[in-house]
Each structure stands twice: as C-alpha cells, then as structure tokens.
C-alpha cells in the first residue's frame, strides 16, 4: 500500500545525511530551565524543619505541577531558605548557586494574601516576611529570609517569584527599592523577567 511504502521510504531514509547532521537533543544545555522551587522553614528557636516544594519535573506543559501545602505553627519565627532546581537534568541541577553568584541581578520576592513584608502590603496577614541576606551592594536577595507567623489562625497564598533583572545599558535594574516597587505597583512596574513564579497555599491553624 502506498502509504506504508512512503513511510517505509521515509524510515529507510533516516539518511546518511540525518546521521551525519544530527547533533542530538540538547534539552537542558540551554540551561535556563527551573522545574522545582523548594522552601525550607526552620524554627529559629530550634525544632524540625518544614519543607514545601513546587515541582514540575517534566517542565512546561504535560503533567500539571505538584504543590505542597504549607502548614506552620502560630507565633513562630522561621528561618526560611529558597532552593531552585532543574530536575530535568540527572542529577538535578542546583540553580540556587547560580542565583547567588548573580545576586546583583536576581531577587526573590514574596507576595500573596498570606504575606506582609517588603514586597507585599497585607497588614494582618498570616506571615510577616523579612530578608536576611544581602548582595554586594547591600540589597536583599531573598534566598535567606525570616517568616514570622501570626498569633492568630490565618491562611492565604504565598507567591515566590524569582526575578532576573540584568542591567540595561549598564544601568542597574535591581535596586534597593525593587521590593517596594513590587509592593506599590506590581511586577509590571519592575524591569527584568520572571525565572520562576509559584504559588503555595499557607495555613496557620
């Protein structure tokens, strides 16, 4: 049958040319992919850490990502670290290190209805955020933070956004007031692009 013949011809012609030119699939070498955002909440006063992960191991599209809920105790201050990974690579690639290396043009912002802090104006929210790390210019990075939970029950969203803000024509885009810009006018008023922006559900029972 004609169809089959054509298909066969096509398969046969996985051509010498094809073999010679195929430089293979290089998904991952392009390097910009983040599949996983992990938060680790460690009580400042000691105790077991709570982790929550947003994970999209097959990348954009396909299976929907999985998101862990975040359940925190009342009235506790948590030292909170953020970790970014590319799990399409095997072993998983730790992007956090690259973000730290380029901390002058990266910042992590914490927004959402459950967050009050430099980038989010939600008084009475379940969590109060503060940056505890700084880049070479003394500007916050957001890989290390504290989250203080309220003394009352509360819930809402926690949006973790990693913003890449490379300088434009040698003018810095990341500034000491970047978080304020997000708080007052949203991300659309801030230069750069999102490398990650994931939403967690937070509950303080």
């Amino acid at each position, binding site marked *: 049958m004609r*169809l089959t013949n*054509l*298909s066969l*011809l*096509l*398969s046969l*012609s996985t*051509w010498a*040319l*094809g073999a010679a*030119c*195929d*430089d*293979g*699939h*290089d*998904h991952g*070498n*392009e*390097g*910009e*992919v*983040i*599949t996983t*955002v992990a938060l680790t909440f460690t009580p400042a006063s000691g105790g077991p850490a709570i982790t929550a992960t*947003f994970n*999209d191991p*097959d*990348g*954009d*599209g*396909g*299976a*929907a*990502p999985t998101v862990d809920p975040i359940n925190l105790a009342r009235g506790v201050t948590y030292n909170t670290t953020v970790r970014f990974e590319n799990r*399409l690579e095997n072993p998983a690639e730790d*992007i956090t290190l*690259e973000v730290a*290396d*380029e901390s002058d043009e990266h910042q992590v912002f914490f927004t959402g209805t459950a967050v009050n802090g430099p980038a989010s104006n939600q008084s009475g929210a379940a969590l109060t955020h503060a940056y505890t790390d700084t880049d070479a210019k003394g500007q916050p990075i957001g890989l290390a933070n504290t989250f203080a939970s309220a003394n009352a029950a509360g819930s809402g969203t926690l949006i973790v956004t990693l913003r*890449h803000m*490379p300088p*434009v*024509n040698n*003018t810095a*885009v990341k500034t000491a007031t970047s978080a304020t810009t997000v708080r007052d006018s*949203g*991300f*659309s*008023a*801030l*230069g*750069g*692009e*999102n*490398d*990650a*922006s*994931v*939403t967690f559900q937070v509950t303080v029972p």
Partner: protein
Amino acid sequence: MRLFLYSLVWVASFGTVASGQPAPAGPPAPAPAGASVPAQPPALPAPAAAPPAPAPPTCDGGVDVHTIDAETHEALPGALVKRGAEIVGTTDETGHYLVTEVCAGVLALEIELMGYQVARQAVAVALGKTITLEIELAELEEEVIVIEDRAVTTELRSTAVLSGAALERKRGRALAETLSEVPGVTQLRSGSGMAKPVVRGQYGRRLLILVDGVRHRSQEWGLDHAPEVDPFVAERLTVVRGASGVRYGSDAIGGAVLVDPPELLNAPGARQAEFHAIGTYNGTGGTLAGRVQAAPASVRGLAWQLQGSFKRLAAPSTPDYALDNTGALEGSLGGTLGYRKDRSELKLSYLRYQAELGVCSCLRLESSQDFYDQLARERPVGSESYRADFEIERPSQTVVHDLALARGKWEVGSHGTAISTLSFQHDHRQEYEVVRDSVTGPQFNFRLFTAELEGAFTHYPIHLNNRLHLRGSAGVVAMGQLHNYSGLPLVPDHRSLGGGVYALERLVGHDFELEAGLRYDVLARAASIERRDFLRLVRSGQLSETACGEGQDDPVECSSVFHTVSASLGALRQLSAAWALSGELSTASRPPNPDEQYLNGSAPTFPVVGLGTPNLGAETTYSASVTSTYKGAHVAVEASAYANLIDDYIYFAPAIGEDGLPIFDVLIRGTYPRFITKAVDAVFYGFDGGITMQPARWLELGGQLSLVRARNRTDDGPLVFVPPDQLRGSLTYRPPLCGPVADSFVSLSGSYVTRQQDYDLAADFAPPPKAYFLLGAEAGFETTLGGYRLKAALQGTNLFGTRYREYTSLMRYFADQPGTQVLLRLSLHTL
C-alpha cells in the same frame, strides 16, 4: 535551424470576411539573418463575396494589426507598422495597431521591430469592416540564443511587480518593507523590528517566497522569524495575490512572492555593474551593496555575476524613547556562473544570507496577569535607560541561510524546452534569551536542510487555428527535508519526503486567454519526538499513547502522510486595448507544518503555552477572484476583489475546556493560557486596488486601498492578525529636465491605517491600537557621472513623528513604532 520552422509562419485572419487558411507549415526559403524576406503572396482565396466593383468614393475599411512573437506568442509593443513605404504608426503595449481609412482591395503591410525579421503581409480588405490580422514576428537568428526564463505569459491572478525605478526607491529596506506599498500587502512585525510580508491577510506558512525560482525553506512558522532574504538579490519582485497552488506548490494558499535576480548577460563582452550606498537616520547606520556582471568575450556563452550587501543599523527610536537592542547586522553574498551553447544553458548559483538581529529589550515575557498589567503602561518599564546604539545583546537571533542551485535548460526536439533545477538549502536559526551568565549558548537552535529537484517542460505553442494557440507546461518536483532542533522544549526533529506533479495549459486567443491547471502533491513526514515531550502531548490530551506505535522507543517516531490536490481555472478577456478583465477559481491544500502538529512548550513570543495537534489534516482553500486592469494614456487602474473559503483552517487559538472556559496552565513561571492549533473553517475576503494618474507630464498622482475581512466560520468569531484597512495616496512632481540632471522628482505620500474593529480579546491579548496617519516625502534626481548613471534620493518617513502602534506587530504590546526616519540613497549603474 528549428527557428525557421517558426519563422514567418504568417497567419492571417479575415474575421467574417473570408475563412482563413493556415499558412503552409513548411519553411519558406531560408534567408540570411537580418535580410528582408520577400513578401509572401497572400495564401488566401480572393475575397469571394466581393467581386471588384467600381471603387466607392470612401475608404472606410480597417485592419487591426496584432503583432506577436513567433516563439513565445507574447504581444510585441513598439513595432513599426508601414503601409507600403509609409510609416503609419507603432503597436501599443498590447501589440495592437489599428490601420484605418483603408480602401477595398489588397493592402500591403510591413512590420518592423528591432531584433526581429521584417514581416510583410498582404491582406484583402472589404469596405465598412475592420478585420483582425495577427502577425508573428520571428527573432533574428543570433549565435547566442536566450531561452526566455519566464515562458508563461500574463498572470491571471492579481499581481504586482516591483522593478526598475520603483524597486530602486525601496532599496535599503527589508523584504517585507520593500513590498509594503503594494496594494494588498502589509507587514507582520517581530520584536526585532524585522517583518514578514502579509498578502491579503496570509503570511508565513501560507505565503510562499521563491528566490530565483526556488522555494525559500526556513522556519517560516514563527511570528518572529522574518524571511532570510536580502532584497538586494532581486532585480524584480513579484507579488502574486491569491492561491497559486498549482504553479508554486500546494501550500501557496495566500499567494507567492517571487524574488528574481537579473538574468545573466548574454552579449559577449558585455559588462554591467551597480553600487548602492544608503545612509539612515533614526536606526543610524547604513547599507552598502553592489553587483557586477560580465559575459567575457574570450569564452562565448560564459557569463558570471557577483552580488553582495552589508548592512549595519543601530536601534531606532520612537518619538519618546529608544527601542533598545533592535540593532541589526546583516549581509549577503552570492555568485552565479552560467554557460550557454546553442539553445541550452547551465547555471550554477550560490547565495548566503547572514544576520544578527537584536530583539527589543522592551519585549518581556510575563505571566498573564503581569502581561495584562503592563499593557496599560504608556512606555516600557526602564525605558529611560534605553539607548539607540549598535550593540546587540540578548535577547537576539542569528540566522544563516544558504542556497545553492544548479539549473539546466535545453530544447527537447522541436517540442519545447525543459528546465531542471537541483537546489540545496541550509537554514540555521539561533535564538538567545536573557539567561544567567553560566548559560552561553542559544535557547532555541533550529537547523533545516532541504534538497529539491524540479523538472519542468514547456511545450512550444501549438497552433489550433489561426486565431488560437495553446501554451503550457508540466513538471515534477521532489523534496527531502531534515530538521534538527535543540534547546528549550518547543518543536521536534523531523524528516520529510515530498513529491508533486502538475500541468498547466493555456488557450490563448486574440483577445482572451483561458487557463486550467492541476497539481498533486504528497508529503510524508516522520517526527522524532523525545519520549518526555511525547508523554507531555499525551498528558495534555493532544495525542493518544498508542498514536505512534506501541513501543517504548525514545525518541518516539510519529509519521504522517498527506495527499493534496490543487486545481485552478482562470480566464482573461481583453475588453479593449486598454481594459482587461480576468477571473480565477482555484483550490489548494496545505498540510500542517510540524510545529502545528507537535508544538509543545511555552511560545517564545507570547505569554501562552502552545500545544500542537498531531492528527491535524490538510487545510483546503477554495478561492475566487476578479481583477480588472485599465491602462490608458494618463490613467492606470488595477482593482481586484477576492474571497477565500478555507476549510480546516489551522488556527492557533485559546484552548477551551469542556466547561466552555479557556484553559490555563500552571507553569513554573506563573499561570499562562493554553493555546492549541485547531482546525476551524474560515473565510477571508476583501478588495485591493491601485490607481496612478498622470494628468500632466510633470504630475503623477497615486492611490491604493487594501481591505481584508476574515471570519472564523466555525464560531462566527474574528481571527487574529488580520490587517486593518489601509489607504495610501501619493503626489509626485517631476520638474522639467534641467541641464545634466534628469528624472528629478519630489513626492509626498500619506498612508492611513484604520483600527482593526474585528478582534477577539482572548486571542489578541489587547485591544487593537488606534488608527493612524503617516506622512512621507522623497526627493531625488539622476545624472550621468563618468560611465555611470548616478541616482540620488532623500527620503523621510513618519514626518510628523506620530506615536503609533501597528496591529500586526508583536511590538505593539510593549512599545511604539519608530518616529521620523530619514534615508539618503545613492546608486551607480553602468550605462
């Protein structure tokens, strides 16, 4: 020798007066080239019904002379018509001349045209009647004979040709911009400011571009992939509006753009050169281009051509801020070698195009909400630090396109000519996103290899009777293609094999033409999808798990085969010497492109997740158009109306869930709407036309109108990126000759673009921009300098510095279009 078979086969027609007998087919006595041929006695019965009566007092007979080329049957304008020894006039553009005040009896006519043998014809004329006389002129025999490239005559579709002075006025601009003032043509601009041409609302996959007769094979699917073609290659640009599937390939649903380099020189010892220098303000920079051609006298029949251009432009500025990082670095280099012997010729050609294009820093991919928020901004965030400089940083694109071809033409017995073309193309596109420093390579890396073999046979005109002849051609094409992709998940690798056969036949009469064509194509494609990407398509519901076999192979091989048929019927009627009417009915089918089948990832240009539909079938267009042209002494008009019904139109649109609401996907970078390619039924219809008037020798007025309407017939909704209405007007003043300065002109032009009223916010993201008016002006002159013709012109666009955005531009979501731009053009052409 064969030339003689066709030389001086005089065909006389007596209309209703007497039935004409075709002249004997045997060759008349050979005559030395260039010598006059003895007048042939009229091989006709004497006017039977009119026995010589006493001469009436008035002579009111007439002879409508129509001169055509014996070989090609093209009309021959400018031929001298003599009555005996007296010159009575020359034939017009359509090859016609009306001899009036003829008395009854036998009239002896002599027709002369440079490069042709003199034709003499005696014709019997009756009183009170005008008879039609078709006279074929045979070319003088030369040692080097050129087989005409463009064997097929008038295009029955609406076409526009840019060449000579009109093309000269567009030099220094990119391909789409060069064509943008042709009625029916608009541009679809990418984030780099580069654009692709849009013909009657169709672009990219549905609009073929042929460079030197070879289909340009590239990543034409991407909205931000401008065609990798340097307009300096062309001596002639032709826009064919409307489905042209039979002639150019089944997927020429929207039409075709032909980029034709000049023919190689053929007179031994001939030389030609041209040089261009163009300087630009706002988009500071310039272009240098040149072409040299020669046919060395030492080797008869040999000819060569070298061509090159180089362009370096800084980013332009809008009236308020610079379009940071939209500079361009572009170059092309080409060489052609040809050899002609007797009636055969061989041509070898190589052409490389290379470009590095910056993408505007203003173009930012945001998650849906942030994207919508930034639409409300007057100017891009951070635009105060934008600069109009040459530097090209990420995001950017680099493209390389190579075209190598070998073409042979030869004569097949006395039946016709054959042309065969073997071509190879390599298209390499790399796109660089803004990334962390540790990443050095491109994020999207496409490589496409195409090999094509085409053979076409054009038969010599077949004379059915003395008023009718048949012209036609038939051909076969074969194509193999290989696509390699690496980078962020987007499109798969694939291999394709295709073939096609076609035939086009045309019945040419004195004042009408009829054309019919049929084509069949087959395309087999095997996509090689990484298992991971395949499973994503499965999970998204675009593909069943067993759609590409039961195995667990990685990569998964998904193959598809498409059979498509194209057909066309066209007619042309010459209503008068100036006025012609043509109409055309056609159908063509386009198989889905690999991206439409297997796209899988977030689109680099839009804040959407794009998914292909693997089991899409071919889309089929049924189109009809009517074109009328009028070419008078002072007025020329072309007007064309068209309608295309497209069934299973492959459309990239928001995915709608079972609940009737748009589907959103949660990605690591936020929430994005899901877009899928789906088959809908569509209709495109509209009108385009142009008029030029020359009320006085020194004044020229022009006007153009383009209207496109489109609907999604499936849900009676609008379609995206349908160009809004455009109206253009121009006024050119040509002062009288002044000393050594010739052809000077001053012109003003205005274009008005309406707001697109018909849009779908879910697919368009933002309401269409406002209507706008742009004013342009140009002044120029020509003079002779040494052995060269020097042409100089100064051109300004958007003279009011109007702030505007184009509906058909990716830039419109982020920034305005450039403000006032000025170009200074200088060119030298050998005389």
